[in-house]
């Protein structure tokens, strides 16, 4: 039932030829797909709706901060209940003004995941219905999970 990694990789290469930057099978035996920013939404929609891929389940949406390469990578992990296959999708966004389209309309599960990425990394998801902080207090100004985060001696003021 699971689609073999090589087979998945070749199918993705042939289906999304110029919409993706790269697709590879990693040393840890995962298929990792890096997509071009403009084609992000269309690739995601195709991955969910196409009956071969059938990636109905968005397992995780997170981000990794690479300050040396001046980018934040949004990472999505999909799982298909029908074919029992896993896929990783990556999107690079600029670190100075991190913006990405939202996939909330494709997988509603992304709602809180994207809020968490916004809260902890500062990536603004355009089109999100309710983009506000989820873990930190509403009036917090910093983005904790970035690599250059310092907490400046967090002092709680008595009220």
């Amino acid at each position, binding site marked *: 039932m699971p689609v073999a990694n090589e087979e998945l990789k070749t199918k993705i290469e042939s289906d999304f030829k110029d919409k993706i930057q790269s697709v590879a099978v990693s*040393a840890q035996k995962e298929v990792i797909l890096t997509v071009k920013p403009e084609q992000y939404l269309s690739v995601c929609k195709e991955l969910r709706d196409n009956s071969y891929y059938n990636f109905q*389940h968005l397992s995780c949406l997170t981000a*990794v901060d690479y300050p040396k390469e001046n980018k934040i990578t949004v990472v999505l992990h999909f*799982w298909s209940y029908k074919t029992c296959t896993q896929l990783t999708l990556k999107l690079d966004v600029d670190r100075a003004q991190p913006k990405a389209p939202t996939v909330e309309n494709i997988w*509603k599960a992304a709602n809180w995941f994207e809020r968490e990425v916004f809260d902890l990394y500062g990536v603004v998801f355009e089109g999100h219905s*309710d983009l506000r902080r989820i*873990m930190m207090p509403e009036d917090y100004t910093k983005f904790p999970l970035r690599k250059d985060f310092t907490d400046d001696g967090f002092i709680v003021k008595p009220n």
Partner: protein
Amino acid sequence: MTDLLLSQIKVSGESQFGTDEYVVNLGPQHPATHGVLRLIVKLDGETVKETIPVLGYLHRSIEKICENRTYPQGITYTDRVDYVSAMSVNLAWALAAERLMGLEAPARANWLRMIFVELQRLASHLLWMGAFAGDIGALTPFLYGLRERERILDLFEMTCGQRLTYNYIRIGGVMIDILPEFVPKCRAFLDYFEPKIDEYEGLLTYNPIFLQRTKGVGVITPEMGINNGVCGPSLRGSGISCDVRKQQPYLYYDQVKFKECLETDGDCWSRYKVRMNELRESVSIIRQCLDRLEPGPIETKLPPVLKGPLGGEIYSRIESSRGEMGIYLVGDGTPKPYKSKFRCASFSNTYVLDQLTRGWKVADIMAVLGSLDMIVPEVDR
């Protein structure tokens, strides 16, 4: 604080603050057992119009901390991610690190891991049963669940000295081998426990009041469930086969026989029934593992310093007691992970609470919240 409240409500896009509605705070301090979850509930008389969970009261930045700890040190933090089901999270991290670095634990270690994770599933479901029944109003099953859980915790204490935060499953194997009296005691416990499941089901499952409170309440349709990221027993109550142990078998789950427990209705009662059936399946799995336990090493030979490969990354999923637990690790050639992310079942399951309770009564919020088996440390990390 009230300004924050109002601004939150306006931003959420719902209708304006009407004269008939009032907003109630199911505050972070709860008589119910779910921990520090805050729910802002907009009510119209008895009927719920919107439920807004406010998270972050238990946010301990575990993911950031793990970036500053080595891979073996990270296991102590995984215990705290889900303290009711700590063995599962230990296992998730250990498996993720092993897959990242290309290590393989020996056979005996894997069988032991399976035994302890399934015992942990029993313990977690027993606590859930007590909390769920207590939310509905039956206060007695809580005591019964805890009584059985005590015996399981005794087994854990015998092995690793801890009752709650074990730090037992390590990268490459387990911490220490079981004592000789573990196997007979475990078998004795299973023989004692299996008829008790029927006893507790007899108390609750077909009780007319319990049925009235849970049947038809909080229905998760299959499409809505998958799209919203619901996972674990909550999704199996709607009939979707989503058990990671069956779909992406890890350890030796493909070598033991067990059924995936599915129900079709998707309401609170179905989710309750799924978990009660999972108790029976776990008992069967543990018995099979005990039969197949062979003497052998419990840990592989590890390099002196465990380093994640440069450019390597892994997303590893297991089936914890609450659902799918995924750990995403990014290695950078150093002994510490560059990035760690815990994908916890309770986080996604709590998201659907709002959709499930609109139009229902206040008492149904507690019933639905209990049936989703959410644990706040998983939500906030």
